[in-house]
């Protein structure tokens, strides 16, 4: 999973940051090609599934944006505005794939989009924030950037390095955000928001 619950930032910044996770429904029983194949030719289906996983076909299809509902595939998308989010959710609703869909973002904004589409929240997860040795955490801006990679593969020191480079004019904020985002393997790092945060920091420096 992607761990997009605890993204830091003020509300105005977070309103430009939505992550949509579309999960393969491992419990569905509708008759897809997969169900028909597994029912009639179970051994062949098992072999196909093994090859599929070994070759990482799902990840390739996912990156190419042509996911076809094969088992084990979860799709992630990042959006920068409520309008883009609403359009995406409208397409998902229309497609009626049977997949569970989870949106991370400012809850009121997400709720508003759902209302527009005749949908409503089924289950909500709130972030109560962080507890413990908070004094060990990096500063606010660094956390706003690092927490956009849910697995924390973007290190605080690398963010600080890029912040210095942008402030010194060595690289553009967009290029720095691109470098940072490359480390997020789930591709839920919001590069556009990161570029804005780096620019804000450079302007304050």
């Amino acid at each position, binding site marked *: 999973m992607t761990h997009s619950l*605890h993204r830091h930032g003020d509300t105005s910044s977070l309103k430009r940051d939505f992550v949509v996770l579309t999960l393969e429904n491992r419990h569905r029983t509708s008759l897809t090609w997969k169900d028909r194949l597994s029912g009639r030719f179970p051994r062949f289906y098992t072999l196909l599934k093994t090859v599929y996983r070994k070759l990482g076909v799902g990840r390739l299809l996912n990156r190419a944006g042509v996911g076809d509902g094969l088992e084990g595939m979860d799709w992630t998308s990042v959006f920068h505005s409520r309008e883009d989010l609403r359009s995406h959710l409208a397409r998902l609703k229309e497609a009626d794939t049977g997949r569970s869909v989870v949106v*991370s973002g400012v809850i009121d904004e997400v709720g508003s989009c759902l209302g527009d589409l005749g949908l409503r929240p089924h289950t909500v997860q709130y972030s109560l924030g962080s*507890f413990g040795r908070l004094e060990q955490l990096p500063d606010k801006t660094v956390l706003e950037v690092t927490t956009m990679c849910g697995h924390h593969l973007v290190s605080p020191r690398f963010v600080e390095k890029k912040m210095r480079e942008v402030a010194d004019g060595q690289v553009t904020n967009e290029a720095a955000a691109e470098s940072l985002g490359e480390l997020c393997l789930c591709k839920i790092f919001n590069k556009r928001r990161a570029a804005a945060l780096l620019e804000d920091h450079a302007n304050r420096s």
Partner: protein
Amino acid sequence: MRIDPDKCNACGECLPYCPTEAISLGDETSTIDPDPCVECYVCLRSDVCPHEAFVAETLEWPRIIRHIFSSVRPVQSGSGLIDGRGTAEMKSNDVTDRYRFGEVGFTVDIGRPGLGATFADVETIAIAVARLGVVFEPTNPVTNLMTDTIAGSFPEDIKRERVLSCILEFKTDEAGCLAVIDTLRSVGDEIDTVFSVGCISRCRDDGTAPVADILDKAEVGYRPNGKVNIGVGWRYDDSGT
């Protein structure tokens, strides 16, 4: 992970990439301190080293736990104890009904954001909430590592293992929700890291969440951003089969 001293020229370019600051710069070569290293492989995957000096070593039990919980791509432990990094939690609740009305789910991301944690820290938190009678999610990989899922204890041989983060996942009834939060606040003083807490609630027909009422009434703060399952997954009986 280790650095091949014959290939490394101590340029220091890799140092900022390490999430746990485990790489240090020497006169002739950089080295990795195995204690803070969580085997996340960020250094290796970043391709920052032009000399290909990073070497992924074969990891044995229990050190392999670090890699399983810290690297995005999971590996098999060979022990049969771990079947993945986590569960779908509330993400598939419209299909699984894991969290029902009257229940409150908790996710405790230990080590998050970014500091990492040992399983000694994990056990301290698990034992504290276990005393309240919470039910740990049986399919969660952290639960699977416990020696006693009632007490929240872990085997001795993994307590020194450090991971970038891992998730304790459990649920209680609505009446027990605030006691869990109080306990989590208190136990924060007993560990040497941070943890981030998620609170899950099934929504009413009008889209509101009962747990929000509980949090608001008790003046427990929560962030404006969260996760919303939008309820379009198919249940068994929705598909007509």
